[in-house]
């Protein structure tokens, strides 16, 4: 753990019910984790992490909610599922990461800006068109992320090769996708 923990670990922090919250949302009992580290060992993005996956599990075990929700790890997770596949205790670690990420977004904790921005723009794009408009997505992301020239060398040949269309593809029944977005995101029930 490269990052310094901000929370003082005390009796009160330890008896919080974060582990129960995770259990309800992801059906994972964090206490099944015996901290073997196999998830960390196989993690594709291990080089880029501050908290390793097993440390994330530990944060849940110790009910350190703020620390877990402020971690960058869930945002850097590539959802490759290697951890889940190899976990000797059959814990769905990828699902836990996903759950923490959703919680963190919901509560607007500090996180990896680019990743959440990308997700947001991506979803906006399909919400508007029903399908992904890649040129629009990249352009908007680069502008919003203040990296306007990122990957710009790729664009011309992509367009030339016919791989990037200049106009979005639109589906006919766009109500359908609007409904799905509205109903699932604006649901009072929230995450699950």
């Amino acid at each position, binding site marked *: 753990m490269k990052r310094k923990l901000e929370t003082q670990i005390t009796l009160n922090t330890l008896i919080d019910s974060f582990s129960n919250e995770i259990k309800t949302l992801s059906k994972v009992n964090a206490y099944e984790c015996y901290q073997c580290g196999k998830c960390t060992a196989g993690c*594709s993005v291990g080089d880029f992490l501050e908290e390793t996956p097993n440390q994330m599990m530990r944060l849940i075990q110790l009910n350190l909610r703020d620390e877990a929700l402020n971690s960058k790890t869930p945002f850097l997770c590539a959802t490759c599922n290697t951890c889940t*596949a190899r976990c000797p205790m059959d814990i769905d670690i990828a699902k836990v990461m996903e759950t923490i990420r959703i919680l963190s977004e919901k509560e607007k904790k500090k996180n*990896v800006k680019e990743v959440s921005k990308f997700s947001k723009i991506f979803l906006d794009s399909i919400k508007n068109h029903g*399908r992904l408009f890649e040129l629009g997505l990249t352009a908007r992301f680069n502008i919003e992320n203040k990296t306007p020239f990122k990957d710009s060398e790729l664009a011309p040949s*992509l367009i030339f090769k*016919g791989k990037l*269309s200049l106009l979005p593809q639109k589906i006919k029944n766009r109500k*359908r996708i609007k*409904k799905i977005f509205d109903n699932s*995101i604006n649901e009072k029930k929230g995450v699950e």
Partner: protein
Amino acid sequence: MNYGYFPGCSLHSTAREFNISTKAVCSSLKINFTEVEDWICCGATPAHTTNHDLGLALPYSNLQLAAQQGFDTLVAPCAACYNRLKVSDFEIRKSDEKKNRIHEITEDKTEADISILHLIEFFKNDFGIEEIKSAVKNPLVGLRVASYYGCLLVRPNEIVNFDDEENPTSMDEIVSAIGADALDWSHKTECCGAAHAIPKTEIVLQLCKKLLQAAENSSADCIAVACPLCHANLDMRQNQINKTFGTKFNTPILYITQLMGLALGYGANDLSLQSHFVDPIKLLTRKNLIPQLEKMNREN
């Protein structure tokens, strides 16, 4: 069997050649797929990492569409779409509560009892490797192919389970069937960085570098893929990788259907081989693997 075809967003844009080559292979093998009409995006990674329900509802809505259009099986060539469709189907079959919730979201009560196949899974289990073998006109003799499966075709194994999750072989079987050498290499199922391509490019560059290095170590001529994102990361960014790490990779990345197309007698243009960033045509010409009579074949 009434097969529906779900290309997904990428196959209509950055992975056009995957779509083109798939269609070519299917027409040569007399496989009849019908594209699901008015399909929508499966939501990919951003949807399920933003909202569980959204991540399930988007793919499920497509399954409902397919069911309404009378399909009983859905074939997806894109590994990401396939994975999301499978996960959604799995979760919803598991719990009636979830199903009701998703029905609420899509405002559609259609029961989508549809089996979902990846294109490779279709070739292996439904169509048959032997059938492919017997249709080969231009065996790709001497081409050393490292089959790259990535994450989404094999994991999580309780949901996508047509192949071994640690040592998958279905793509290799196809590679062998079309006369090429299937290499047993170390990074078959390692991750390429996937959706981090745009927001966290540095991750993708490093992971892809390792992949390309492993392929080179096993002296592969090219890498075969079945996922548009894997392709984009390995092909489009190969130059960036070389710049960043000072490497000299020049490994063409080909869709498995492009290789199949070659073996079935199609030429470079039929399979849109020129649309890659790392040019495969030189390699294939050197190995004398591009059919000469491509136009005649097409007319046949």
